[in-house]
């Protein structure tokens, strides 16, 4: 579904991605883990068309999308849930959701967008309850649900999530991850960037570890959980042993 080959991208003279190759097959949940500054957000940004790639290929559903306009990528069915939610605080919940359907406004009747909004409310009941409320007044967890809901409003087949667990209570994180699993059950493909490697690998089929702009580990979620480097660096396993 999504194929990245030898991707290089960065900001100005700063090369962040140094030849990244990875893929996500249809219906897969793939976790991308790595330390701060490894390039995870840059990778998602490059796929979504909001960070300029200088070399390599990005192919979504058989179409080359490297440096394509962001809205075209959304229209093709690849949506991003950005880091830190990036919802529009002064707008209502409903307005935020409708903005998610903006890219499709000329391609489908309004009724289709409304039908989809019903689905999103079904997925996150709280968004239905608070549809008139200003988004800025929602809790962190609710804002995250809104950000995911907004991405779903573009009717994507692949959804990329950047740190959905950041700054959210563990119980809500669990709910959100369960929703991700449910979405996959409906055929959604998911690329999940997470600091919380344990939670991400618990629901993922496969994973990649990105270090300093390069992929250094790939494998099934089980491979990653059993990999001692992953345990040391991202699961905090050996530190605990030292404490004891």
């Amino acid at each position, binding site marked *: 579904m999504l*194929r990245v080959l*030898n991707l290089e991208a960065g900001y100005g003279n700063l090369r962040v991605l140094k*030849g990244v*190759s990875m*893929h996500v097959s249809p219906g897969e949940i793939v976790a991308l883990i790595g330390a701060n500054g490894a390039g995870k957000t840059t990778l998602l940004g490059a796929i979504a068309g909001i960070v300029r790639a200088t070399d390599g290929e990005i192919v979504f559903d058989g179409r080359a999308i490297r440096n394509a306009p962001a809205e075209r990528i959304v229209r093709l069915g690849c949506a991003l849930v950005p880091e830190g939610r990036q919802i529009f605080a002064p707008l209502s919940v409903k307005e935020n959701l409708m903005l998610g359907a903006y890219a499709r406004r000329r391609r489908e009747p309004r009724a289709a967008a409304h039908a989809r909004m019903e689905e999103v409310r079904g997925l996150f009941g709280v968004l239905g309850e608070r549809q008139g409320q200003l988004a800025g007044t929602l809790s962190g967890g609710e804002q995250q649900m809104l950000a995911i809901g907004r991405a779903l409003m573009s009717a994507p087949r692949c959804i990329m999530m950047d740190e959905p667990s950041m700054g959210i209570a563990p119980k809500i994180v669990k709910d959100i991850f369960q929703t991700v699993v449910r979405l996959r059950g409906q055929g959604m493909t998911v690329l999940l960037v997470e600091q919380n490697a344990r939670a991400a690998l618990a629901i993922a089929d496969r994973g990649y570890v990105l270090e300093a702009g390069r*992929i*250094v580990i790939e494998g099934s979620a089980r*491979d990653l959980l059993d*990999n*001692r480097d992953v345990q040391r660096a991202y699961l905090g396993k050996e530190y605990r042993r030292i404490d004891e």
Partner: protein
Amino acid sequence: MFDAKCEAMGREDLAQLQIERLQLTLNRVYRNVAFYRHTFDAAGVAFEKIRAIEDFKEIPFTTREDLARSYPYDMFAVPLKDVVRIHSAPGASRRMIAVGYTKNDLRHWTDCAARILTAAGVTDQDVVQIAFHYDLFSGGFGFHQGAERLGASVIPASATMSLETQVTIMRDYKTTVLIGTPSLACNLGTMLDAFKVQPQALHLRVGLLGAEPWSEEMRARIEAMLHITAIDSYGLTAVMGPGVAGECACKDGLHVNEDHFIVEVIDPRTLRPLPPGEEGELVFTTITKEAFPVIRFRTGDVSALVPGTCACGRTFVRIRRIAGHIDDRLFFGGRNVFLSQLERIMGEVLGTLPHFQIVLDRKDGVDGMEIRTEVSAEIPSIDELKTLDRLRLAIVQRIEVEAGMQVKVTFVEPKTLARSETGEVARVVDTRE
């Protein structure tokens, strides 16, 4: 198929997976293994610029000598405490190679072996008798783990017990699958009579054999003697162990587990990769191994990539059955002949391996081969002329059937073949122009 999602994956998806795994393997070995860092730097290879499998030919080869020089642990790409198993492979000049496995390496090995077993027709209903050695050399372990993973009933018979005990177990435990070397299968077949066991009295149906080169003729003999289907497999400890490649029911080449290994066939003289169909030396790169990755490892084994696709549905590339080892190959009459094969036949017919010398000549453009053999007291009843004639004929016939060529066998007096200063008989004398 054990894992159809992988074994029958599209070639385009496989190419993507291979380049991803190759790149991360290169990233890891460059960072963690001094040998590769130095080799890449010395060769001026910008491994980061490996953008496609085709760029591969710029990366230097790794030889058995390289691995032996790094004895014991310098080739490990993880700290020793991450290693959960250590096997050994024969190195160069009598040195050994220590090969480590992490928990993930063992699981992948098990899965690879399970795939090969499944391709050979083994299921959870089978009783599997493993007659490989269980020791430092990975032999029995790979298939043992794989067969357990399948849920078969596994008998770790190993190769140390007598043929008679193997047969007794085979009969009493109702073994359905024999795993071991083709020589062992052949010997078992030959001895059934002596043990007064009819092949029909056995439940054996599959022989998954390997670890040494064997011919189609030998396969036919084993199948006839034991009433089984004999399937070939390939693996080596330096790369992983048994389970690198194996035949499916089509018996038309061995499928390489390409999601774990990149296979190449090179011309051993020019070191250039050869296209499918052309015979050369097998070269493997591991792309999932954590503890002991090898990059473009020259196996010395002679094979070729099989062109085209296989009827079984597996998309993994096939290699031809191993013809022999590069070091004991000689060209004769436009084909490859392996000394080890001749040695084996001589040993089997004579019951011992005497000193012998192969003399090659060419008359009117036709290659001729004479095998001069020193008689010795160890050859049973060698003093009778009739015996000599019978042995000569037996050798000639076996070589004709198994190696497909006509040779002349002569017996000479003890200690008459020319010796070198160290007392060794030159194995091959080539008088061809």
